[in-house]
């Protein structure tokens, strides 16, 4: 099952995109965006995995004695997750503003009004 990790990442990405595009509620859309972001984390971490590698914390290890999984992609992913939360919060603030003015959370209704 060697292709499973990458296929999972691709599947989660597509599922999240589908959810975003067919959503009828802005908050639901924001959470689907979060799901799409999680697909990128899965892809990053899967591409950094090494068979038989350890977690990248050196505890009483001499350099070169054990192999580790790739720490660079983990470093990217962990900052990414927290920053993604802040961006989600920003989107939610915009949604609150939109709701104040339009009193609807339906993306279709919001676009219909303009035409």
């Amino acid at each position, binding site marked *: *099952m060697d292709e*499973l*990790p990458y296929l*999972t990442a691709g*599947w*989660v990405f597509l*599922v*999240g995109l*589908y*959810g975003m595009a067919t959503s*009828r*509620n802005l*908050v*639901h859309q*924001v*959470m*689907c965006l*979060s*799901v799409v972001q*999680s*697909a990128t*984390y*899965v892809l990053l*971490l*899967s591409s*950094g*995995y090494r068979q038989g*590698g*350890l*977690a*990248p*914390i050196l505890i009483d290890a001499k350099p070169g004695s054990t192999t580790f*999984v790739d720490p660079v992609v*983990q*470093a990217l*992913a*962990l900052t990414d*997750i*927290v920053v*993604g*939360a802040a961006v*989600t*919060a920003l989107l*939610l*603030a915009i*949604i*609150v503003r939109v*709701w104040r003015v339009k*009193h*609807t*959370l*339906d993306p279709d209704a919001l676009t219909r009004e303009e035409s």
Partner: protein
Amino acid sequence: MALQTGSYILVAIGALLVVLTRRPERQVVVYSLYGLLLTLLFLVIRAPDVALSELTVGSVAIPLTILVTLSKMRDPEGPE
């Protein structure tokens, strides 16, 4: 190895469930559980730092923010 396969499959199913739950109040709970599944996956992939991040952010911080947001958009007619 079986643990990893199982974790990947659970994440795939979890993502589908998050997207298929249409109402935000219910989706928040499913999303929180999905964060837990992701944490499990990241642990099994030997990424404890990322797992810690995902646990606090995906299961606590984001659902909290979303619930606070949802509580502000209550109205007699209700958001739809």
